[in-house]
């Protein structure tokens, strides 16, 4: 694997893994990407299957973001230094909120709005900063692909 591919794999996995695990995951993860770097599959909610994005509507983007955990009670208003946050790097990026099939937006937490499932409201599945009106991130690890 070239160093460049390794870097992409590391981003896709979003976690620290050993080399063998990286190779296995990269072959699983690469089928999520089309040739032009867009989502090959539909992006859906992990819990209820609500469709978030149709195929080809988002591009893969690498960005380090801290998203509060979905599975524990956590106070989202204070995410700084919270042990319940996950640092995620692999995301689907869209530039217009009307690109989404179904998605919810939380109220503001500082300059951030979190994205949640529109139907069952689980989240956060994504992130949006009000200072960048053309960037909406959905974390690959927080969704399923079908």
């Amino acid at each position, binding site marked *: 694997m070239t160093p460049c591919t390794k870097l992409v794999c590391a981003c896709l996995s979003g976690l620290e893994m050993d080399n063998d695990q990286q190779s296995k995951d990269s072959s699983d993860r690469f089928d999520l990407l089309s040739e032009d770097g867009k989502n090959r599959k539909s992006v859906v909610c992990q819990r*209820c299957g609500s469709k978030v994005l149709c195929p080809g509507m988002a591009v893969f983007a690498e960005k380090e973001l801290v998203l*509060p955990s979905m599975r524990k009670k*956590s106070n989202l*208003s204070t995410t700084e230094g919270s042990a319940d946050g996950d640092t995620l790097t692999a995301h689907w990026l869209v530039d217009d909120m*009307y690109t989404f099939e*179904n998605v919810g*937006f939380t109220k*503001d937490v500082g300059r951030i709005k979190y994205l949640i499932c*529109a139907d069952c409201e689980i989240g956060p599945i994504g992130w949006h900063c009000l200072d960048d*009106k053309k960037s909406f991130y959905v974390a690959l690890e927080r969704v399923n692909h079908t």
Partner: protein
Amino acid sequence: MDPRYDIPRRAAGGSGGSANSSPAMGAQSRRRKMPPRPADFKLQIIIIGSRGVGKTSLMERYTDDTFCEACKSTVGVDFKIKTVELRGRKIRLQIWDTAGQERFNSITSAYYRGAKGIVLVYDITKQETFEDLPKWMKMIDKYASEEAELLLVGNKLDCETDRIISRQQGERFASRISGMRFCEASAKDNFNVDEIFLKLVDDILSKMPLEITNKELSNSVLSLQPEPEVPPELPPPRMRCC
């Protein structure tokens, strides 16, 4: 937006699309899977009504105790994008649920201004939520567009045994307001909930001219901020009487 994903306006001899025009090649390209298209329209819907009528549960499909909805309970939901398909068109709805802002004046005029559809909810088991309706109508008359479609929803149909407001009462209220539709629903039983949005969108679409561009609609889109820029002039107060 990528031009590949635009719907071709004309079936034959279209620009963009496939360069092959012979029937054989045309048939072949039809078999090729079409990429999902982006939405045809964007519409804004607001859900209003007194506290406790169940507005928020109209929007939510599932509650599951194994997951804690950290986002929902600690931060609150601002709005949702939802997609419905109707009359062969794909429509994106931006839905603002005004839960938690039931004091009549605290829901800013901005929410009403851009709304193409307004869902006004009361609780069939609570008299006061029905008696509050004229006050909500005052807000609608004052701030909402004349063209906004109205739908009155009597919620909590699952509590039939505790019913205070009859169906006839709800129908009568709606019939007194021109263009207002009525239905009863149960968010708990998921009865009529999807139909509510489909019904509203259907009404909105039926009023639209056949050819309408996204550009015209996008002018009415509220920004993410709850207080968008004030337009040059407010729409005139709209009279709603039959």
